[in-house]
């Protein structure tokens, strides 16, 4: 489906400059990326990236294959069609007045079950985590009150249930010692 947002997860070696290589590739190939997040993975020495790609304007398969060419990228999978949990965290600072603060707090805490983490006479900071739609809805509702600043993390995602290809790969890495002798490789896939 061309209009869908695609989620790619990537296992990369934790080496200086890896993020640079990934973003350089995005720029050079003119890929349209919504967000990119990165953090340590379960396996020491490896990081995990989540890239959200706009499938309407970018050939997602090309993104996947070009990223895979980067030497530090160990594995990359498109999990869009898997059973996934995706979340984003946002800290939203909204203008408040004595007359609006009650309403803001009601929307945030009661309706969205978000947290109020800061309260001053002029502003309120709300912390919300949830899937992208939920976060977007709250932001749109609060926009009417006047947004001061918005800090969003971008989407992270993980598959539900049994081991996905990335997880299996990580397990293999943790099990075996580091060697690389063969010149020939496994059969083609993908």
């Amino acid at each position: 489906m061309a209009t869908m947002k695609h989620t790619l997860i990537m296992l990369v070696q934790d080496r200086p400059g890896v993020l640079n290589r990934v973003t350089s590739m995005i720029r050079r190939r003119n890929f349209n990326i919504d967000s990119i997040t990165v953090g340590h993975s379960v396996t020491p020495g490896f990081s995990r990236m989540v890239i959200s790609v706009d499938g309407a304007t970018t050939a997602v398969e090309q993104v996947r294959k070009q990223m895979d060419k980067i030497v530090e990228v160990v594995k990359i999978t498109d999990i869009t069609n898997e059973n996934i949990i995706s979340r984003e965290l946002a800290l939203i600072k909204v203008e408040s007045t004595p007359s609006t603060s009650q309403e803001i707090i009601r929307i945030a805490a009661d309706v969205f079950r978000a947290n109020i983490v800061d309260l001053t006479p002029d502003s309120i900071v709300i912390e919300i985590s949830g899937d992208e739609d939920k976060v977007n809805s709250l932001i749109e509702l609060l926009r009417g009150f006047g947004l001061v600043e918005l800090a969003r993390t971008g989407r992270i995602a993980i598959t539900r249930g049994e081991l996905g290809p990335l997880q299996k790969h990580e397990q293999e890495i943790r099990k075996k010692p580091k060697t690389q002798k063969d010149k020939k490789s496994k059969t083609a896939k993908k």
Partner: protein
Amino acid sequence: MAKLKGAQILCETLIKEGVEVIFGFPGGAVLPLYDTLPEYPQLRHILVRHEQGAAHAADGYARASGKVGVCFATSGPGATNLVTGIANAHLDSVPMVAITGQVARPFIGKDGFQEVDITGITVPITKHNYMILKADDMARVVREAFYIARTGRPGPVLLDIPKDVFEEEVNYKDSEPLDLPGYEPTFQGHPLQITKAAKLINEAKRPVIIAGRGISISNAYEELKELAEKAQLPVINTLLGIGCFPESHILSFGMLGMHGMAHANLAIDAADLVIAIGMRFDDRATSKIAGFAANAQIIHIDIDPAEIGKNLKATVPIVGDAKNILQSLNQKIESNTHTKWIHQIEEWRQQHPLFTVRKSEELLPQYIIRQIYESTNGEATIVTGVGQHQMWAALHYCYDKPNTLISSGGLGTMGFELPAAIGAKVGIPDDIVWAIAGDGGFQMTIQELATIAQEDIAVKIAIMDNGYLGMVRQWQEMFYDRRYTATPLAGPDFLKIAEAYGIAATRVDSKIEVIPAIQQALNTPGPFIIDFRIEPEENVYPMVAPGTNIAEVITDPRDRSILPEKAGNIGSL
């Protein structure tokens, strides 16, 4: 375990990787490395005159010899001077390791003297690059660099080494395993895909093979020949695929693309099956991609999975090594004949005869290339620059052996010819190497004549001297109403330049002088330059105008009916 300096470990590892020649230019940051070189006489260092020459020489060396080319440069401007050569190797998939010095570790990132972020600069144009921050990593990283450069789809790898790392002394461990969990080139094609492909081949009525440089890289000439002969498949090649199938073979139908043979382009347009091997559907080959091979299903065999589907959707993609895949494929296809189809392509060839040079007493470049072919029995290795002369060299010499045409295809770098010819001659010293140059591009790397003279490298050089930037002038003639802006060249007297460098040379002004001059060049030991003053406004034909379908070939210089109305929508130049 011996304690060695970083520079020594580097040299030891280079030797272990089979390096015999290095092209380079010294400087402050690489002084410790150069001071160590004499301890390793197995490494021959050839001093160039510009680092771009070092990179192109390493490139030509790699293409001619099949080994990984190696070049050295110092930090800052030395490193940036390599950039064009590295980009060139990247686009044409040439295995190369470029080693640059860097300022000492405490000075990195502080805008020091001759400091430049070469690793940052070369990220988009290298297969991979490293900055080696500890001499402990030297042996492993250098081995990784060579492994990455020569395996899978070959490409340039850059190693940036700070000056103090060259001098750092550590215990030398040479057997550390490589650490490349993310690098695993696919070698074997998927058997199901190969079966699908075989079925399409067996059933096709008008099949063609388009063979590219991947055949040469993979050493798959025998397998390609077997495939073509077994199923009687016409073989068409890209510029960089020239020589991977003998052009004198009855099934060879020449080069496709913007300046390809008319019958090759027409055949692709009419084909019902295209078997693309080791080629990437570059825009010079396909012209307008929408409508390219519109009537055909596509089998795309390539070692780089990212190329499949990048420009053209493939019906049957097969990722893997060409030689390996063709071996399996050849077992699954049936013997077949396509007499009617081949007869049709032959008919097109008769209708658009461009292999005959038009009868003329003027000094024509096509005639010169022909004579070089005749005088060397087609056994020379031809190294070209970029431009009209490149196309004439590709079209009018019959290449029967692999790697006998060395040309900058992807990047199209003017000035490639001279340093690359140096590298090629060093790589295959017993072969005749001819550099075919244009008077424009030749001046871009002309300083390497000093390298030829100093090292006595017996390259024969033919300058197609027409006083113009030929290819640009041709476009200005065809699409810009002959407005020759910035294309006329008031060239130097190349004979005087040759004399200044101490290289034998002669000039040819007329047709009857051509054969004697070529004979003189071949009979004179050592390097030789011939300045051919050719017909100034000669054009390359055939031609496909940019943005048009590949079948719309302009074969008659006077036929302007196919040209686009305006120069405006030409698209990519």
